């Protein structure tokens, strides 16, 4: 599911993709940079499935989401970032379904004229995605599947942006 809103006036292209397929980081950065000589700064974050979590060895994850609401919540998070920082293009990709250790889960990329805006918006989007976007992880660890609990630290980190 891909939603692209192009605002030709100020080069603010937004790409949101929720997909089972893997993504290619270089292609995503190309898309952010292509014909975008206004913005010199690109900050990215990519998250992958780690081989361990809270001391347990992990062999895979299953990612469930709330179709429809996921896209809406990401659009809203990106709008909040656009309201706070002077940013250009934004891409958010989140994978769903069955993932293995080392697989990419999430990509956030933000362009800007200035590095500080690119960094801040990229981190803000990740922090808000963690607490506002309806994704749930089920972890496969030592043969047992269990839903992950939300972390208090994620909630606190997101709240820091409000101060």
């Amino acid at each position, binding site marked *: 599911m891909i939603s692209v809103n192009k605002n030709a006036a100020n080069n603010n292209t937004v790409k949101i993709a929720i997909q089972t397929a893997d993504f290619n980081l270089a292609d995503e950065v190309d898309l952010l940079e292509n014909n975008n000589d206004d913005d010199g700064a690109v900050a990215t974050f990519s*998250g992958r499935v780690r081989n361990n979590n809270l001391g347990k060895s992990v062999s895979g994850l299953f*990612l*469930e*989401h*709330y179709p*429809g*609401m996921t896209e*809406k*919540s990401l659009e809203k998070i990106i709008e909040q970032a656009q309201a706070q920082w002077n940013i250009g293009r934004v891409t958010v990709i*989140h994978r769903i379904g069955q993932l293995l250790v080392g697989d990419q*889960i*999430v990509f956030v990329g933000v362009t800007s004229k200035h590095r500080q805006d690119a960094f801040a918006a990229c981190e803000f989007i*990740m922090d808000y*995605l*963690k*607490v*506002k*976007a*309806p*994704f*749930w*992880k*089920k972890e496969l660890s030592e043969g047992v599947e269990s*839903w*992950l*609990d*939300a*972390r208090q630290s*994620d*909630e606190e980190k997101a709240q820091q942006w409000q101060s």
Partner: protein
Amino acid sequence: MIKVLFFAALREQLNSEEISLPLDKMVTVEHVIESLVTKNPDWKTAFSHTLLCAINQEMVTKNHTVKSGDEVAFFPPVTGG
């Protein structure tokens, strides 16, 4: 009528992903939970955990109003990213 959706651990605990619920007047989310638990007493434990609620795909608090035709979703705190 309202459509009620359940996700993730809650969906598995209730063994239900979507139900329809008759709604004859405006109520709050809290009232929706009460009527779900009244109809299904074994759902009580699942609804005693911390849950989030969205109405028409927007996050709301438990005193938010629910009206006929709404899509009401209950789910555990999110863990994506």
